[in-house]
């Protein structure tokens, strides 16, 4: 199915995206537009290709042995699979947050400072400090960790760790943030904090989130795409997907009548 929007608000657009892992095709001709400064949720059963698609958006699949990509993904009209494009620079523009909170085993400060350091975003120490503080504040974590920036990031609670990872992603001021099931390892309260954060981040960032939790997709996203067996089955406004989906498979999945 073709899910495209005729809107000048398009931030990223994927066309005819096919991905295969060692000969096994995982995505089939996916066309999808991601709108500027909105939250797009990718849902679907396990192995449907939603994470694969997400990882195509910042070329995280590059490092996976035997992964072959066809098609095109554009950000602001520029092809990210252009061989001339610098992947490192791309990842500074498109940040990523992972399923399991994965702070570096370093201090909270170093965790956040790392990105700006390797990209040279801060001219001196005070600028770096400013970046760290702003990122933590944007991630709603500053109040909780202000007095222990030098303590290890791994000592935080699961929810705080995940927000630390989001802060780390924000620190390089990306335009797009990809989130791969960011709340699947968190308890409901921590999840609520992260969801609230996602909602706030929408004002400044374009967010794509993969989630297994449909309520979460319904709560945080403006648009939802349903993947099944490597195909994009349905894409539309979240409220439409969750109240009256058009496709039988979407209906079955979101109401719990699958398979």
């Amino acid at each position, binding site marked *: 199915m073709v899910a495209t929007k005729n809107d000048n608000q398009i931030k990223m657009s994927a066309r005819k995206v096919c991905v295969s892992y060692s000969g096994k095709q995982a995505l089939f001709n996916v066309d999808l537009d991601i709108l500027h400064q909105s939250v797009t949720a990718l849902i679907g059963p396990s192995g449907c290709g939603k994470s694969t698609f997400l990882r195509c958006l*910042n070329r*995280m699949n590059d*490092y996976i*042995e035997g992964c072959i990509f066809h098609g095109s993904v554009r950000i602001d009209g520029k092809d990210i699979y252009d061989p001339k494009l610098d992947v*490192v*620079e*791309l*990842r*500074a523009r498109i*940040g*990523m*947050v*992972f399923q*399991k909170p*994965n*702070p*570096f*085993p370093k201090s909270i400060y170093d965790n956040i400072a*790392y*990105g700006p350091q*390797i*990209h040279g975003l801060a001219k001196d120490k005070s600028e770096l400090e400013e970046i760290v503080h702003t990122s933590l504040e944007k991630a709603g974590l500053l109040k909780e960790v202000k007095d222990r920036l030098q303590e290890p990031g*791994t000592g935080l609670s699961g929810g705080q760790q995940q927000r630390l*990872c989001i802060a*780390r*992603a924000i620190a*390089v001021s990306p335009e797009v943030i990809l989130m791969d099931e960011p709340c699947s390892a968190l308890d409901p309260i921590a999840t609520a904090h992260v969801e609230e954060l996602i909602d706030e981040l929408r004002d400044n960032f374009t967010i794509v989130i993969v989630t297994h939790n449909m309520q979460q997709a319904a709560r945080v996203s403006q648009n939802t795409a349903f993947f099944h067996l490597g195909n994009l089955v349905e894409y539309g406004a979240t409220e439409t997907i969750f109240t009256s989906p058009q496709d039988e498979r979407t209906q079955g999945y979101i109401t719990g009548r699958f398979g």
Partner: protein
Amino acid sequence: MTNTLLKGFPIKEGERTETISKRRERRYAAEKRFKILGILSILVAISTLFLLIGNMINKGFSAFKQTYLELSISLPENKFPNEKQISPNVISELNFKSFLKRALLKKFPEIKSRRDKRLLYKLISSGATFDLQDAVFENPKLLGKTITTLAIASDDVDQYIKGNITANNQGRITIKQSKWIDKLVDDGVINQKFNLKFFTNGDSREPELAGILGATIGSLLTMLVALALAFPLGVAAAIYLEEFAPKNRWTDLVEVNISNLAAVPSIVFGLLGLAVFLGFFGMHRSAPLVGGVVLALMTLPTVIIASRAALGSVPPSIREAATGIGASPMQVVLHHVLPLAIPGILTGTIIGAARALGETAPLLMIGMVAFIVDIPQGINDSATALPVQIFLWADSPERAFVEKTAAATLVLLTVLIIMNLGAVLLRKKFERRW
């Protein structure tokens, strides 16, 4: 209740509890047997180890003590008023040997014949002369005074005192000598002291003068060379293979070869060293440099395998996190993966080094087995290594070398235990939890 529970199962209501409890008993019995077997095997291993170490201590501990003769020696007047004129050459013009002989003879005024005198003088080691000479050189003011000094006894006296040999007219201590010794013991002239020479001397033909310093320095230099080569090479190879190399037939082949190399008998590495480093490159025979290179080759596979395991155990989430922020593959490895893997790598390296430290065979092939008295000053000096020294002493005919062998083994074992302990502590200290 139970009826509905058992619906569809072939088992009958009555049999159920009985079958289960019978099974459970058998299971518990099997568990218990397994535990007992495990404890037994550990006991066997530990008792063997204790037997070995106990045996070594039993045999070798006496080597840490040395027998001395307490003699009062009257030194001649100082003929050199200017202290600056005193040099070893000048000092050695004095006949220290005769001073010692005279002092000893004073204890036995009844001895007159030349033969007996010669037998008597044999009680003192030739090393005593040099000790006295050194003492006077250090402190020339002693000249002209009568001093009490400890003269090192010969190995035969030492062994006789320790009860390792008995007096025998055909043997190394004659009945006559033994009587003199007994008298000296009664007079309190014979003393036993901590054997410092064992740790400060190089090898010697005289067991009472032989020490392990030369071999230890040799081992140390060899290890330095080996580690300086094997560590960076091994880690670099491991990083490349684990993080960057594509998975294909060639890397598979390399992998198989590395594993194979780890299992190659060490003597083969010695042959390689002999043929390539000595034969082809013409490097210095018996030098720690060659030994180190050979041991580095031998340790390399161990280091690579341990490093790869350590690198592989760094969770992929850390790699993903760094990659996701925009770190290049090189930065991912150097900033994140390697620091986390270092404890594991070091542990592997220390264990590899410990193995190399105890290695004898390859060193035999490249000539580090020579009798070398001097303490090596650099990696190109001729040297020997601790295990080789042990091997050499074990081959020596003198009874006194038996305890030296055991003592050197004890020292080597202690060093190995310290290294392995270090590896364990390192692992414990830097172990990270993700």
